[in-house]
C-alpha cells in the first residue's frame, strides 16, 4: 500500500469528524415492480464499521450493488471524498478504492490463492506468482491472518476464503471494504474472528461496511448502524449515540426501527428459552450405528434415540455429515449399516414413501430444489409426497375438489401468504414456501420429524414462526430431530443436543446452563 496508514493508537475508535470517504446522496434504484432503494442517504467514514441492518428484501443488497459497481442508481448521486463520482463497474469501484467481499465467494475455486489474486493482468503476461505471494504475506501479517498462498481456493474453508478476499481487497489499495452478509455462512467462532479482524482493519484507518440481518452482530461489531426497511432508510445510530445508549437500549431502538413498533415479538435473538419437557416415555425413534457412504463426508456410528415430545438438536458446523444423515433417515440415501426403528418397527429398508406412511417426515433445507416444484401450484406442492394416493387421485386421475379443500385448509392453518392455492409456489417468498413445507410435513399421521436447517435464509419474523411450529410439533407428542448450524436456535429449542463433527456424533449433552460452553467445545473439536 502506498498511502501511509495511521498508527493504530492514533486511529483507535471512530475519528471525531473527518470527512466521509463515500457518500450516497439520496439514491433511488428501481427494479420492475419494486423500488429497491428509495432516496437512501448513507455516509461512510474512515476507521469506522458502518453496519447496514435490515431484513431480507430491505434493500441491503441493492445498496451494496451500487457501492461495488454492479448497479448504478436511477436517481441521486455518489460522492467519493466529497466529489461527484460514478461507480459504473466493479473495476471502477476498485480504482476508487472500494473493495467488496460478497456473501457468495468471488474466488475461482479451481485456481490457487495467488492465481486468484493475479487475475486481471494483460493477457499474454505471466502471472507474477512469487511477487504476489510475498505482497500477500505482508498484508496478511499486517492484519493478522495466515493463508497458504498456493492452496487451491476450493480446499479452503469459507472463513479462510473471506480472509483471502479481504487481503486481496487491501492489496489492491482499498480504503473501503464492503462485507456483504459476511457472517451468514460462518461458524460462531468464524464470525467472532471476523469481528476481531474488522476491528484491526478499522484501526488501520479503513472504512468497513458490514451488512447483516443479525442484531447481535450489528451491536458487537459496529460503530455506526443504519437500518433499512422496505427499501427506505428508517434510521441511523451514530457512534456517540450507540455508546450512550448501551446494548439493551440500542437493541430496543433497532427493533423499533426494523419492525416499526416495539410491541411486536420480533426480538428473535436472545429469545425466551424453551420450557424443558420432562421426558420419561420410551423412545419413539431409535437410530443405531447408522452409517452412510459418501465421497465428501462419510457418516458412521451414529446412535441416537428420540422420545415422543422431545426435541433433539443436532448441532455442528455445516458440512459435517448432517445432510447425509438426514437424507439417510428420510430414505433418500442408502444406509451402509445400522438400523432405524420407529415405534419399535424397523424402517431402514423402506423407501421414502414407506417411511412417510409410517409417520416419519423430513423437512428439507433445500426448499426450492428438492422441497418444492416451483412451477407447480401451491395446492399440488402440498401433496407432492402423496401424488396418486386416495382421496386426491383416483384411478390415476386428479380430483380437483379434495385437492383444493386440502390446500385451503393447510394454507389457512399454517398462515401461508399466497394470492391463491393455484399460484405457482416458486412465486412465494422463502418464508411462505417454508410454511407450506411445514404444513405438508407436519400434517397427517406424522409421528417423528426431521428438520434440516429450518430457518436458514428466513427473515426474523419467519424464523420465529418456524421455531414456534417446531415447539408445537413436540408439544403434540412428535419426536423431533432439529438439525441446525445456528447454535442459538439449537439452544433455544432443544431438550438434548447432539454435536456432529466429521460424520460422527461426538457428544450428547442435556440442554442446561452449561450446554453452550460444552457444545462449543465439541463443535470446535476441543472436547471430542
Amino acid at each position, binding site marked *: 500500500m502506498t498511502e501511509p496508514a495511521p498508527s493504530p493508537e492514533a486511529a483507535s475508535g471512530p475519528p471525531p469528524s473527518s470527512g466521509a470517504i463515500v457518500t450516497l446522496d439520496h439514491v433511488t434504484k428501481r427494479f420492475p415492480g419494486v423500488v429497491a432503494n428509495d432516496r437512501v442517504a448513507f455516509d461512510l467514514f474512515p476507521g469506522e464499521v458502518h453496519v447496514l441492518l435490515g431484513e431480507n428484501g430491505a434493500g441491503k443488497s441493492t445498496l451494496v*450493488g451500487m457501492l461495488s459497481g*454492479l*448497479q448504478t442508481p436511477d436517481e441521486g448521486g455518489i460522492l467519493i471524498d466529497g466529489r461527484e463520482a460514478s461507480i459504473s*463497474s*466493479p*473495476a471502477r469501484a*476498485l480504482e476508487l478504492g472500494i473493495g*467488496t467481499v460478497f456473501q*457468495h465467494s*468471488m*474466488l*475461482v*475455486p*479451481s*485456481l490457487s490463492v495467488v*492465481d*486468484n489474486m*493475479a*487475475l*486481471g*493482468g*494483460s*493477457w*499474454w*503476461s*505471466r*502471472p507474477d506468482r512469487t511477487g504476489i505471494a510475498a505482497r500477500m504475506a505482508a498484508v496478511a501479517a499486517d492484519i493478522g491472518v495466515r493463508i497458504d498462498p498456493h492452496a487451491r481456493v476450493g480446499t479452503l474453508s469459507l472463513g479462510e476464503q473471506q480472509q483471502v478476499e479481504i487481503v486481496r481487497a487491501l492489496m489492491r489499495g482499498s480504503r473501503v471494504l464492503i462485507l456483504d452478509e459476511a457472517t451468514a455462512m460462518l461458524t460462531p467462532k468464524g464470525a467472532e474472528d471476523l469481528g476481531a479482524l474488522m476491528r484491526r482493519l478499522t484501526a488501520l484507518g479503513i472504512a468497513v461496511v458490514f451488512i447483516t440481518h443479525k442484531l447481535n452482530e450489528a451491536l458487537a461489531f459496529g460503530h455506526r448502524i443504519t437500518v433499512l426497511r422496505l427499501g427506505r432508510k428508517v434510521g441511523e445510530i451514530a457512534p456517540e449515540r450507540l455508546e450512550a445508549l448501551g446494548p439493551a437500549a440500542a437493541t430496543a431502538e433497532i427493533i423499533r426501527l426494523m419492525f416499526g413498533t416495539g410491541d411486536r415479538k420480533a426480538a428473535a435473538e436472545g429469545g425466551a428459552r424453551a420450557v424443558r419437557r420432562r421426558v420419561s416415555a420410551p423412545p419413539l425413534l431409535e437410530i443405531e450405528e447408522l452409517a452412510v457412504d459418501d465421497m465428501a463426508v462419510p457418516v458412521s456410528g451414529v446412535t441416537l434415540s428420540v422420545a415422543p415430545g422431545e426435541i433433539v438438536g443436532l448441532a455442528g458446523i455445516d458440512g459435517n455429515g448432517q445432510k447425509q444423515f438426514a437424507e439417510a433417515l428420510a430414505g433418500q440415501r442408502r444406509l451402509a449399516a445400522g438400523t432405524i426403528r420407529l415405534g419399535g418397527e424397523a424402517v431402514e429398508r423402506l423407501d421414502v414413501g414407506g417411511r412417510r406412511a409410517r409417520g416419519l417426515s423430513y423437512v428439507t433445507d433445500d426448499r426450492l430444489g428438492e422441497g418444492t416444484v416451483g412451477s407447480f401450484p401451491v395446492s399440488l406442492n402440498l401433496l407432492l409426497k402423496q401424488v396418486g394416493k386416495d382421496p386426491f387421485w383416483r384411478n390415476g386421475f386428479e380430483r380437483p375438489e379434495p385437492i383444493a379443500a386440502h390446500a385451503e385448509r393447510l394454507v389457512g392453518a399454517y398462515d401461508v401468504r399466497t394470492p391463491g392455492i393455484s399460484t405457482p409456489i416458486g412465486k412465494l417468498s422463502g418464508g411462505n414456501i417454508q410454511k407450506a413445507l411445514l404444513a405438508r410435513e407436519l400434517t397427517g399421521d406424522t409421528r417423528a420429524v426431521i428438520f434440516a436447517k429450518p430457518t436458514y435464509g428466513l427473515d426474523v419474523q419467519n424464523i420465529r414462526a418456524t421455531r414456534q411450529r417446531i415447539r408445537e410439533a413436540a408439544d403434540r407428542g412428535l419426536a423431533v430431530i432439529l438439525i441446525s448450524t445456528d447454535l442459538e436456535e439449537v439452544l433455544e429449542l432443544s431438550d438434548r443436543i447432539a454435536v456432529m463433527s466429521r460424520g460422527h456424533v461426538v457428544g450428547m449433552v442435556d440442554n442446561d446452563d452449561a450446554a453452550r460452553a460444552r457444545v462449543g467445545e465439541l463443535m470446535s473439536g476441543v472436547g471430542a
Partner: protein
Amino acid sequence: MGALFTDAFLTSLVLGALTAGLPLLLAGLGEQISEKAGVLNIGIEGMMLMGAYLGFVVAYTTGSVWLGFLGGAVGGMAVALPMVVLCIRLGLNQIVIGIALTLGTEGLTALLHHFQFAQSYPRLPAVPTLPIPGLSELPVIGPALFDRPAIVYLAILAVFVTAYVFRSTQLGLALQAAGDKPAALDAAGVDVVNVRSFAVFTTGALAGVGGAFMAEVGAGIFVPFMTNGAGFIGIVLAMQARGNPFWVLAGALLFGACLSATTALQVAGVSIPTDVIQMLPFAAVLLVLVLFGRRASLPAALGTHYVRGAR
C-alpha cells in the same frame, strides 16, 4: 494373429491414426478452450465443415496449401461469429444455437459444393511432406510420424502452446475463471464476454484448420458432410481431458487409430465387413463414455450466460 502385425500394417495404422486423429486433435483442443471459458460449443461440427469447405476452395483456387489452411481458419471463425453474437453477447441457448449452426453449415456447404463442383469433382494434389532429418529414417514410426506435412507438427506444437497458455499466462487464468466463476473474473476487471468471445473464435480457427486438414491432407477433395461427427468426437475428447491438452492429444490418437483401422486392416488383408470396422470409432466413444464418463469434470458455469449482478 501374429502375421497381422507386419511393418506395413503398423506403419499404415500409425500413419492413419495421425491423419485421422489430427482433425480430432484440433477440434478437441478448440473445444477444450471454449469449455474452459464456460462455452459449450456444439457448433464445432459446423465450424469444421466450413473450414473443410473453405480450406478446399482456397487451396484449389490458389494452389497454396497454406492459404488453404488460412481459409479453413477463416471459415471456422465465420461460423464462430454467430455463436459469439447470439450466445455470448445476447445470451441465447448455446446448445440450440450450436445445433442450428451445425445443421445450417451442413446445408450451406452441400449446396455450394453442388453448384461448384458436382460436375467436375476436382482433386487437390498430395500435400508435400516435411521429413525430419534422422527421425524419419526410423523403421515403422519414421515414415508414419516424421515424414508428414508441416501442419501436423504445428498441430502437435499447438498442444504444448495451449498447455503453456493454460498454466502460465494471465489468459489461461482468465479462461479458467470465465468457466468456473465468471463473476469473479468480472470483479477482477476483466470482461467476461471478451474472454469468452476470444475463446470461441480460437475454437473456430482451430476447428476450421482441422476441417481443412481433412479436405486437403486426408481426402484431397471436399465431400458434403465429410467431417462425419469429428467435431462431436472433439467435444467428447474435451470433456474427458479435464482441461489438460495432452489428454486431448492422447485421446485424438486413440480415436484416430480406430478411424483408420479400416485402411490398416485392409492392408493386412483381414476380411471383416467394412461397416463393422467403420463402426469402431463410435463404439470407442461409447466405451470411453461408459468407462470414464464419471471422470469428466466440467467447469461450473459451462453453458450458462453471464449477466453481471444476476444471482
